[in-house]
Each structure stands twice: as structure tokens, then as C-alpha cells.
């Protein structure tokens, strides 16, 4: 806007501000008195006339739009505060795949968030990244991280998805941190995984320990073999890691007695598109090992194991319902 300002004379700028003000006044309701004042403003100097012409051009453009439709398309009702305009774009983008009906399982997937990150995976991909200090990060399906190594610290920002980190055995004196939306993790050892869910972080420690700090300075140490979920306000209770929790590294899903609906939500992370699930499917429980590189097969298995139908409406839209 600055460069436009620079090319406009002060009179033109004033005229534009006045024109905007007059437009508002006349829209609010015109009296003959007001109209007269407006006309004399218009005739006062050529800049005013010019400014009003600009306004009419703008009005004509807006009038050509099908109003209701245009309003819905621009979604002004859902806009977040303006302070972080760029972030807003990303936030609204994150919403694309998520349909508000409760039974849609689309993994939190934000294409722009992914693509702007330093390292990322597409849905269904797993990738290993070697960091400059010798640590490795393995990214699970649809995950993204930013890596920020400075002379004083090593920091990984988990943007979305899940990562498994093995910190370097080399002696690097810079502290190592993993930042999620809810808290800051400081590994005091070597191997752990972190998953960014919508409103919480889930940490699983496989070796040694990880210290977690929340924004309000609450701290806890999660020891090896334990799993900790936390929001930005509180820690949930520690639970024991069950076998198979890191099976995704081998592109497998190993589960034991999991509600079917939960299982399908898990599968949805590795599939592009959505899986529609009827809520009553939670009453069935499933166990077994499934191949994450072929989720179609897992879905077919479900239809054989339980009295449910799996309908492939398209490659990206699968619906699971009681038979």
C-alpha cells in the first residue's frame, strides 16, 4: 500500500478517504440534506470527482458477484484474528480435509503446512532424515518438521504427524529440544517418538528418558517404556508402551483388542482421502498385524472379520457400516 500512497498526491489521498466516508454515510441512509452536502463535496475539486469514480468502479465489481455464494466462498465467519495473517492461511488450509460431521475420519492433513516445512512426508510415506549432528529422525505418514540448529541449541519443530528420534551418540554439548504445539521435550537419552495430535502431544520413550515442559513451567520426566499424553495445560497419567507401538517403522500396524472405530482412524492416517465410519462400530474389537503399504487389504480384512460392509465409493472415499 505504501508505494500506491507514494504515487498519490496528498489531495488524492484525502479525496479517497472522503469518498469512502461519503459512501458509508449515503449507504446508512440518505436525506436530501445529506445528498446536497455530498454533491457540493463532489463539485468542490476534480480530485473528489476522480475519487468517486474509483469508488463506483469498485462497487460495480462487487455488484457483479452472486452475493450469497461469494460470501460463503470467502468464509469471513470462520476467519481467525488478523495478527498472524500468514498463519491464518495455513490454519484455514488445515481445515480443508476435515469435514465437521463427527463420523468422518480424515487425518489432520495440511498440504501447505507440510510443503513449507524443511522435511515432510506425503500420506502413506515414511522417510528417514539424517541431521547435521548425526541424529536421525524418521517421519511417519503425513508428517512435517522444521529443523533449527544454532550455535547454542538443536531444535526440532514438529509441525504435524509423528516422528521417531534417535539422538546422536556423539558428544554435542548443545541441548536438543523437540517443540510441539503443547510443550517442549528435552531428551535425556536416545530413542523416543512424538506424535502431534489435534489438541495434544503423545510421547513414547523407548530408551532413557525425556523431560517435558509445559508453557506454565510444569515439568515431568517420562522414563523408558512409558507413554505420556499432554495438552498445553496438563499431563495425563503415564501408561506402559505395548508391543508393536513402533511397528510403523516397519510399515506395520500391530494392535491388540482395539475398538474397530479407533483402528479405522489409525488406518486413515496412512490413506489419502477419508474413511466414513458409523459410530456403532466401536462395539467390535480387533487384533492383528496389518500392512500399512496396503490399507485396502486391511479394509477388506475388516469386512471378513466383522458383520460390516466396506464400500469403496472412490479411491479416496471409503465407507464402513454395519451389514
Amino acid at each position, binding site marked *: 500500500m505504501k508505494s500506491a*500512497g507514494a504515487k498519490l498526491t496528498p489531495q488524492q489521498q484525502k479525496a*479517497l478517504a472522503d*469518498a*469512502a466516508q461519503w459512501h458509508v454515510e449515503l449507504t446508512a441512509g440518505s436525506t436530501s440534506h445529506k445528498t446536497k452536502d455530498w454533491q457540493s463535496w463532489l463539485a468542490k475539486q476534480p480530485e473528489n470527482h476522480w475519487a468517486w469514480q474509483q469508488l463506483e*468502479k469498485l462497487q460495480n465489481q462487487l455488484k457483479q458477484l452472486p452475493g*450469497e455464494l461469494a460470501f460463503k466462498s470467502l468464509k*469471513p465467519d470462520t476467519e481467525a484474528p488478523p495478527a498472524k495473517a500468514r498463519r491464518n492461511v495455513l490454519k484455514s488450509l488445515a481445515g480443508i480435509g476435515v469435514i465437521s460431521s463427527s463420523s468422518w475420519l480424515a487425518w489432520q492433513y495440511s498440504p501447505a503446512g507440510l510443503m513449507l516445512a524443511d522435511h515432510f512426508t506425503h500420506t502413506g510415506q515414511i522417510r528417514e532424515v539424517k541431521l547435521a549432528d548425526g541424529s536421525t529422525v524418521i517421519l511417519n505418514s503425513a508428517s512435517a518438521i*522444521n529443523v533449527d540448529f544454532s550455535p547454542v541449541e538443536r531444535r526440532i519443530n514438529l509441525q504435524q504427524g509423528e516422528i521417531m528420534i534417535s539422538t546422536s551418540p556423539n558428544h554435542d554439548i548443545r541441548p536438543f529440544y523437540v517443540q510441539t504445539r503443547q510443550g517442549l521435550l528435552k531428551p535425556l537419552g536416545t530413542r523416543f517418538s512424538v506424535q502431534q495430535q489435534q489438541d495434544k502431544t503423545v510421547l513414547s520413550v523407548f530408551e532413557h528418558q525425556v523431560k517435558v515442559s509445559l508453557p506454565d513451567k510444569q515439568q515431568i520426566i517420562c522414563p523408558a517404556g512409558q507413554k505420556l499424553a499432554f495438552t498445553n495445560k496438563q499431563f495425563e497419567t503415564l501408561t506402559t508402551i505395548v508391543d508393536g507401538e513402533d511397528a510403523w517403522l516397519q510399515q506395520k500396524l500391530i494392535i491388540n483388542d482395539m475398538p474397530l472405530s479407533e483402528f479405522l482412524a489409525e488406518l486413515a492416517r496412512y490413506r489419502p482421502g477419508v474413511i466414513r465410519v458409523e459410530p456403532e462400530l466401536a462395539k467390535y474389537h480387533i487384533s492383528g498385524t496389518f500392512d500399512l503399504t496396503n490399507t485396502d487389504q486391511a479394509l477388506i480384512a475388516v469386512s471378513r472379520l466383522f458383520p460390516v460392509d466396506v464400500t469403496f465409493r472412490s479411491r479416496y472415499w471409503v465407507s464402513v457400516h454395519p451389514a
Partner: protein
Amino acid sequence: MNAPLSPPPTESLEKLYQNNFSWLQNWLRERLSCSHQAADLAQDTFVRLLSAPDFHGKVETIREPRSYLVTVAKRVMIDHFRRRTIEQSYLQALMQQPEQEGISSEQSLIVLETLYRIDAMLDGLGAKVKRAFLMSQLKGMTYREIAEEMGMSESSVKKYMAKATQHCLLFSLYEQFDA
């Protein structure tokens, strides 16, 4: 972030293009998994560089051309996705329309182009200002109705409207100067 390895600093735009265009295209392709789109956006990135005010004076001073290109390419990607978001909400809204109000695909293209423009025009205004402006201009609501819906005074709505209108006027002129 890890700075991508760049060839030596660039002396001219031509060199910048020659040395980095296919690299940038690959960088984008890896992210978009669509080579057509990657080619388009790589092209858009250079177009944006060229149209940046005072770019020609700056080209010789770019020390890390690839980091620089990535920064611009990210902005191009954000705009691209922003357009796609609008397109998707438009299509969704269109599907909810009664059939007799059908809109031809040609008309849709024009509407979408205008929507992208308005979205860009209103970017940078506060959410409330933007909402008030669109309720008035697109839904034809009166200031009193807007005030009620947004839970504020009518005089605040008028202030928002004046601010938004002035902003849009300046934006349109800025575009003309730019072209």
C-alpha cells in the same frame, strides 16, 4: 532451516534463471508431487521476482540465491493454496445452491477470479472489518443488521466500513500502478 547448497552468487537475472530454474522446479515437484504444477509455480516464482519493486538493483547482491528463491516460492505456494481453498469453498457453496440458480462454468471462472482478487484485496484487514464489509457489500445487510449480528454499535460498523472501503480503493489503485 538447512540452507540449500547454492552455486556461487549470481551476477544477472539470466544466470539466476539458468542456474536455478530446474533446481527450483525439482524442489517444488518434491513438495507438490505434480510436475505440471511444479513447472507452473516455478515460473510464477520467477515472475514474482521480476515484478518485485527494485529487483534489478538487488539481483547482484543476492548471496544465497537458492534460499532466496525458496522464500519467494513458499509465498507463491501459500497464494496458490489460498486460491484453492476459495475454489473449494466456492464449489461446496455451489452444490448447496437450488438448481434453478445454476451458474455456467464460464461464469464460475469469472466469479472465481473476482473472488481471488477480493480475497487479496481484503488481506491485511482485521477479521471483523472484513466480515462487516462483506456482509454489507455481498449480502446487502444494513449497518443496523450487521451491528446486531456482530454484537457491536452501528457507529463501529460505519467506522469499519469506511476503513475497508478506503483500503480497497488504495489497493485497486496500487494494482493499476503496478501493471
